[in-house]
C-alpha cells in the first residue's frame, strides 16, 4: 500500500521534470525546481530515508531556491529557444536510457530483503551501532564515525564551494554604470510578514540547534542543522534587508565559522591520532570507548554544522551583495 504512494509521487516527479525542461521562463523553472525537490523529499521519506529527506528539504527548498533567485535577479529572465541540434541530443540521451534500462533487467526488485546489498555490510552496521555507539540513529553513526573520512571530505567540499564563490564574486563588477541602488530594504513595507518573520526566526534557529544536537536519536545531524540555521538567517535577511543581516552576522564571523568548523573536524581527527588511535578513531577520546565515540561524534557534528551554516550564509551574502552593487 505504501508503494501506491511511491508510484504516485514518482509519476508526479517525472511530470515536474518534463515541465522544468519545457518551460521558457526561467523564473517558472526555478519555482518548478523547488516543487521537484519537495517531491524528492517526500519520495525519500516514503523510501524510509528520513535523514536524507530532511537534508533534501532543508537544502533543496530553502537554500537552492534562494541562490537561484538571487542569481536570476542578476541575470536576464527570458530564455531564448535554440534552433536545431534537437536530434543529436535526443540520440545520445536515447542510447543512455537504453543502457540503463538494459541494466535494470536483473537488478533485485525494490525491497526484497535477500538482495546482495543488504547482505554484506549493512547488517554489520545495524548490530554494531548500539554496541559501539549506544545511540539509535544508525545513519548518523555511519556518517560520522564508521565512514567519518567521507564526511571530512564533505566538509572540505563545502569549504571549497565557499572559497570558490567568494573568490569568483570577489571581483568588482566591471560595468561603470554602477549607480548605487538603494540598500535592498527587504519586505520593509510588508508589515505582516515582517512581524511574523521576526517571530519565526528565533524558532527556526532554535529548531536548527535542536536538529543539530539530537542527531543521534532522531533524523538530524550537522548538515541539516547547518542548512536550517542558514535558512533562518536568510529569512531574517529577506525581511530586514541584507544590511541588517550582515550587521547581525558580520561577514568575518561567517568566514571564521567556516574555517573553524573545518579545522575543528580535522583537529579532532589529529587529536585521536595523538592519543594513539587511528586518524578518526574517537574511542580513544574518553576512558570508555562508547562514551568516547559519542563525544567525538558530538564535536564532529558541531564542526560540520558550523561549517555548513557559515558557508551557505557567506554564499548568500556574496550573491545578495552583488545584487545591490550591480
Amino acid at each position, binding site marked *: 500500500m505504501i508503494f501506491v*504512494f511511491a508510484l504516485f509521487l514518482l509519476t508526479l516527479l517525472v511530470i515536474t521534470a518534463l*515541465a522544468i525542461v519545457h518551460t521558457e521562463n526561467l523564473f517558472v523553472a526555478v519555482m518548478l525546481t523547488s516543487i521537484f525537490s*519537495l517531491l524528492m*523529499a517526500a519520495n525519500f521519506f*516514503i523510501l524510509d530515508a528520513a535523514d536524507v*529527506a*530532511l537534508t533534501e528539504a532543508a537544502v533543496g*527548498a530553502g537554500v537552492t531556491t534562494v541562490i537561484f533567485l538571487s542569481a*536570476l535577479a542578476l541575470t536576464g529572465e527570458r530564455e531564448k529557444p535554440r534552433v536545431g541540434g534537437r536530434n543529436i541530443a535526443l540520440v545520445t540521451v536515447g542510447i543512455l536510457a537504453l543502457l540503463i534500462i538494459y541494466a535494470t533487467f536483473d537488478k533485485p526488485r525494490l525491497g526484497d530483503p535477500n538482495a546482495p546489498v543488504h547482505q554484506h555490510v549493512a547488517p554489520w552496521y545495524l548490530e554494531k551501532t548500539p554496541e559501539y555507539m549506544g545511540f539509535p540513529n544508525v545513519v548518523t553513526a555511519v556518517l560520522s564515525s564508521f565512514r567519518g573520512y567521507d564526511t571530512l571530505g564533505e566538509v572540505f567540499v563545502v569549504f571549497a564551494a565557499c572559497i570558490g564563490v567568494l573568490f569568483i564574486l570577489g571581483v568588482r563588477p566591471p560595468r561603470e554604470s554602477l549607480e548605487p541602488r538603494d540598500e535592498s530594504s527587504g519586505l520593509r513595507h510588508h508589515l505582516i510578514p515582517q512581524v511574523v518573520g521576526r517571530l519565526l526566526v528565533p*524558532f527556526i534557529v532554535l529548531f536548527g540547534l535542536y536538529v543539530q544536537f539530537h542527531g543521534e536519536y532522531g533524523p538530524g545531524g550537522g548538515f541539516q542543522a547547518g542548512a536550517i540555521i542558514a535558512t533562518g538567517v536568510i529569512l531574517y535577511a529577506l525581511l530586514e534587508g541584507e544590511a541588517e543581516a550582515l550587521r547581525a552576522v558580520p561577514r568575518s564571523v561567517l568566514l571564521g565559522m567556516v574555517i573553524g568548523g573545518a579545522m575543528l573536524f580535522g583537529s579532532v581527527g589529529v587529536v585521536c591520532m595523538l592519543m594513539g588511535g587511528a586518524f578518526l578513531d574517537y574511542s580513544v577520546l574518553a576512558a570508555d570507548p562508547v562514551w568516547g565515540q559519542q563525544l567525538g561524534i558530538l564535536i564532529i557534528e558541531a564542526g560540520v554544522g558550523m561549517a555548513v551554516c557559515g558557508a551557505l550564509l557567506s554564499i548568500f551574502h556574496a550573491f545578495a551583495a552583488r545584487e545591490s552593487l550591480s
Partner: protein
Amino acid sequence: MYILVSIAILVTMVLALVRALLGPSVYDRVLAVNVFGTKTVLLLSVMAFLNGRPDFLDLALAYALINMVGILAVLVFFQSRSSAKERAESD
C-alpha cells in the same frame, strides 16, 4: 483510516501541480508552490503516523518553516525585479 486522508492530499497535490503548470500569471504559480508546500507538510505528518513512527514529525516541522522562506524569497525577488522594471521604464 489515514489512507483516505493521504489519498485526498495526494489528489490535491496533483491539482496544485496542474495549476502550477498551466497557471497564466506568475503569481498563480507561486500560489501553487505555496499550496504544494503546505500539502507536503500534511502528507509527511500523516505518513509519519501511517508508518507508526511518530518521531518523524521533525521533518514536517522543518518543512513548515522552510516553505515560508521559499515563498518570501520569491516575493523579495519580485519586489526587486519590479522596482528594477520601474527604474528601467522611468529613465
